[in-house]
């Protein structure tokens, strides 16, 4: 019945887009793809009869166009569900949930608690991934465009805070935690969660038109959530299974 799934079974693998932003997605020293999102996808596809996933690392901005151009079959990269995105792609049920955090210098010298605090301090700058959730949150909170710095990747953001180029760097909590763990820099501090920022969840994103495959995916995801296997995969990475199970795609896509 599902032509797309049949096709994937036949070729034996599904092509997924990832971002190389641990712990959501990661590439190990041997080149192997890991991270919570691909691990979940790998397991579900196996249950669907597709033996493996092949990951290509992509910029966040190129993911949705790539999906639409048929470059990937699914995006599993911590791409948070939001109404506009829900209009552009077909999301699965929630997988990874996370709140927003900010990375600042030790002692939080400017006393940030929320994006509004940054807006109020006319000399403060905040870094965020281009086109990401954090950029939009900061802009919506009233931080002017020229004080929201588009940073290409996490490592660069960390370096820019260290060097004092930006006052805060904003990413999901777990991503920031991972960054600071690797950097092992006692002069940095994490503010989590950012006050007033909602908790977001991602899902596997399929191309519009592949809803049948998405539905099959959802069925397996639900089974895994129930059996506790889901929690076993994502909790070692620091994600909360409960958070994902307490909300739905419907709610997240309708928000605001």
């Amino acid at each position, binding site marked *: 019945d599902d032509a797309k799934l049949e096709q994937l079974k036949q070729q034996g693998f599904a092509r997924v887009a990832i971002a190389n932003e641990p712990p959501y997605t990661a590439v190990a020293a041997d080149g192997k793809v890991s991270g919570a999102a691909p691990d979940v996808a790998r397991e579900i596809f196996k249950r669907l009869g597709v033996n493996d996933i092949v990951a290509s690392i992509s910029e*966040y*901005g*190129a993911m*949705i*166009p790539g999906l*639409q*151009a048929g470059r990937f079959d699914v995006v599993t990269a911590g791409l948070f569900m939001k109404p*506009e*995105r829900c209009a*552009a792609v077909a999301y699965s049920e929630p997988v990874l949930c996370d709140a927003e955090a900010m990375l600042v210098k030790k002692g939080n010298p400017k006393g940030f608690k929320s994006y509004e605090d940054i807006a109020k301090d006319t000399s403060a700058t905040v*870094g965020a991934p*281009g*086109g*990401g959730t954090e*950029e*939009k949150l900061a802009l919506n909170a009233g931080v002017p465009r*020229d004080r929201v*710095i*588009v*940073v*290409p990747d996490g490592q*660069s953001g960390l*370096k*820019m805070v*260290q*060097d*004092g*180029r930006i006052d805060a760097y904003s990413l999901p909590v777990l991503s920031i935690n991972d960054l600071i763990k690797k950097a092992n820099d006692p002069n940095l501090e994490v503010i989590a969660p950012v006050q007033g920022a909602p908790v977001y969840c991602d899902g596997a994103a399929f*191309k*519009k038109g592949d809803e049948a495959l998405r539905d099959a995916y959802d069925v397996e995801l639900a089974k895994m959530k129930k059996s506790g296997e889901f929690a076993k995969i994502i909790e070692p990475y620091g994600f909360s299974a409960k958070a994902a199970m307490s909300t739905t795609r419907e709610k997240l896509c309708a928000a605001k």
Partner: protein
Amino acid sequence: MGPLMEWDWNFVREIMPTLIQGVKITILATVLGSVLAAIVGLAIALARRSPNRAVARSVGWFAEFIRGTPLLVQLYFIFYVLPDIGILLPPLVAGVIGLGLHYGTYTAEVYRAGIDNVPRGQWEAAKACNLGGRHTWTHVILPQAIPPMIPALANYFIAMFKETPLLSAITVLELMNQAKSVANTYYRYIEPMTLVGAFFLVISLCSVVLLRWLEHRYGRIER
């Protein structure tokens, strides 16, 4: 068909001001980078002619190295590695320095060719007229060497213009970065990217006309 293929003029109108903001930064970076490249190039070209072999050699290798490695990696290096040794540059400054240094190694070749193209007879005539080193350079060699270089120099400055999108890697909000930001916000890639292409094409077609004129005006010297 996804939304990607549906061209939306309203959307174009909406994002135009943002993109124009980016064009301004792009032009600023190009102009400053060109000025720096023109100066750095002359310095390298003269250093490579230095009678001090050690200076000539090491500048030569340095220039080869810069010329042989990608600007993108150099920009990363200037922006993210230099702070470790205490050099903290604002993004635009780092970008201009990167562009200026990188293209300086190209313009150095142009200067060298221009100087080499002044016939040997002119150096000899200057000697036979008993002109000193400085006078030979300022009155005989450079006035003949520089006009034919102008088109080639302009060519590199236009190429530099097209490489400014690399500056997005070091958080400069130039045209390409603005376009990406717009694209990521609205999940529409085709309009901003095509507009970027159109901007570049229009500006470089204009510059082709300018180049042809420069070539015509300065390209050759009548002997």
